[in-house]
């Protein structure tokens, strides 16, 4: 079995990267629950990167572009329902993030922030919706990509505006610091503004989704295991185990609701922080 069908159906057997990652392991949920499954295992090891989560990311990109193109088409001055919804979503990023944080020169950054927000949001929501049930950004490679871009962006605009030396001076040395403290402040500021920012950006998004998905797995997979058990476990009776399974499945709905919220919040936070870093890199006085 292979191809796009294996997007949805768990693969048995001989998948290359899948097996190496430990992907056939189901319980207890853990790091191996996040293993990507190659779509074309018969093509061999060098195509193992064509996996189900990559397909998810591609589908997310198509959805994002499709959504925005549909929302952007056929505009009139007085918006209809579709346009009003599109403008509401667009304004969330345009006015709520870009304009409020970046001030009057916010327009060039709208496409970047809009891409960031909608791409992260759709991929996060994949973790709560059928078909995929997996947040793409709990694979840290994608998160590294976005954090790297944001890092390049805010340092890039800062360097373009002030030159490399000027930007470094502004970033690493807050005004009004006595010379005696420079030896402490400069490395600290450099560390926090240049090194730590992209790392925290990436880890925050990744860890939230990774942990969230893990919790979902615990309740859903654990619950279904308990519900379908046919033998006594840990000295508990089968009816008790089944009851616990029902409770666990029911509680998973609450966890899903929380995950929906976290999906949105993390997409928002990533975008806001990127805008914030850009704003601080462009600020006249640090």
């Amino acid at each position, binding site marked *: 079995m292979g191809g796009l069908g294996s997007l949805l159906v768990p693969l048995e057997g001989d998948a290359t990267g899948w097996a190496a990652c430990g992907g056939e392991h189901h319980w207890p949920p853990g790091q191996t629950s996040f293993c990507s499954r190659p779509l074309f295992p018969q093509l061999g090891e060098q195509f193992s990167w064509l996996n189900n*989560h990559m397909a998810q*990311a591609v589908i997310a990109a198509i959805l994002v*572009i499709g959504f925005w193109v549909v929302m952007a088409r056929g505009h009139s001055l007085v918006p209809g329902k579709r*346009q009003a919804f599109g403008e509401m979503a667009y304004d969330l990023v345009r006015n709520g993030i870009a304009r409020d944080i970046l001030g009057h020169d916010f327009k060039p950054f709208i496409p970047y922030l809009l891409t960031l927000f909608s791409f992260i949001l759709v991929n996060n929501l994949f973790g709560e919706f059928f078909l995929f049930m997996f947040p793409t950004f709990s694979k840290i490679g994608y998160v590294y990509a976005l954090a790297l871009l944001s890092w390049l962006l805010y340092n890039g605009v800062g360097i373009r505006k002030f030159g490399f030396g000027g930007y470094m001076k502004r970033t690493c040395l807050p005004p009004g610091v006595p010379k005696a403290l420079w030896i402490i402040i400069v490395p600290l500021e450099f560390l926090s503004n240049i090194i730590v920012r992209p790392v925290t950006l990436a*880890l925050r998004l990744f860890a939230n989704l990774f942990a969230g998905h893990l919790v979902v797995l615990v309740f859903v997979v654990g619950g279904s295991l308990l519900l379908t058990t046919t033998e006594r476990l840990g000295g508990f009776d089968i009816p008790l185990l089944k009851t616990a399974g029902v409770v666990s499945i029911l509680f998973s709905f609450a966890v899903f609701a929380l995950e929906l919220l976290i999906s949105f919040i993390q997409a928002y936070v990533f975008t806001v922080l990127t805008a914030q870093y850009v704003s601080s890199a462009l600020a006249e006085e640090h």
Partner: protein
Amino acid sequence: MLPLIDFGPLVPQEPAEILVGLVLFFIILFAMSKVVVPMFERTYAERSAVIQGGIERAEAAQREAQTALENYRAQLAGAREEAGRIREDAKAQGSAIIAEMRAQAQEESARLLQNAKAQIEAERAAAVAQLRAEVGGLATGLAGRIVGESLDDDERARRTVDRFIAELEQAADQAPARQA
């Protein structure tokens, strides 16, 4: 070879994930910056232009209304002033007319009085002359009857009468003069 520290899930399962993430991001970014954002911004710009135009039109209309109101007020004040002046003029004219009429009437009455006086004078003179003539005749007649002789010699009689009357008149004239 095992790494010194196990980073666990912090190491991408496939390094290609980073590349795929970057490529997808740039594809979306391209679509956003070339299609979506320009379309939205164009709508916003058109809308704000329309609203801006509406505000400007409204401001212009308000300014116009303000000017019209001021004009109207000025005209009203002018008209009031004009009406007052006309009223004053009319009053002055009216009193002038009354005065003129009064003068005319006085003149008229004076003239009438004058005429009446002249007429009376003339009538009196005529009466006096007539009287004188008649009184002369009567007196001579009377005197002739009394005297019995004819005093029909007209020439003489008239001279006598005339002389008598002249004396009478003289006496009458002198009497008020003495009295005065």
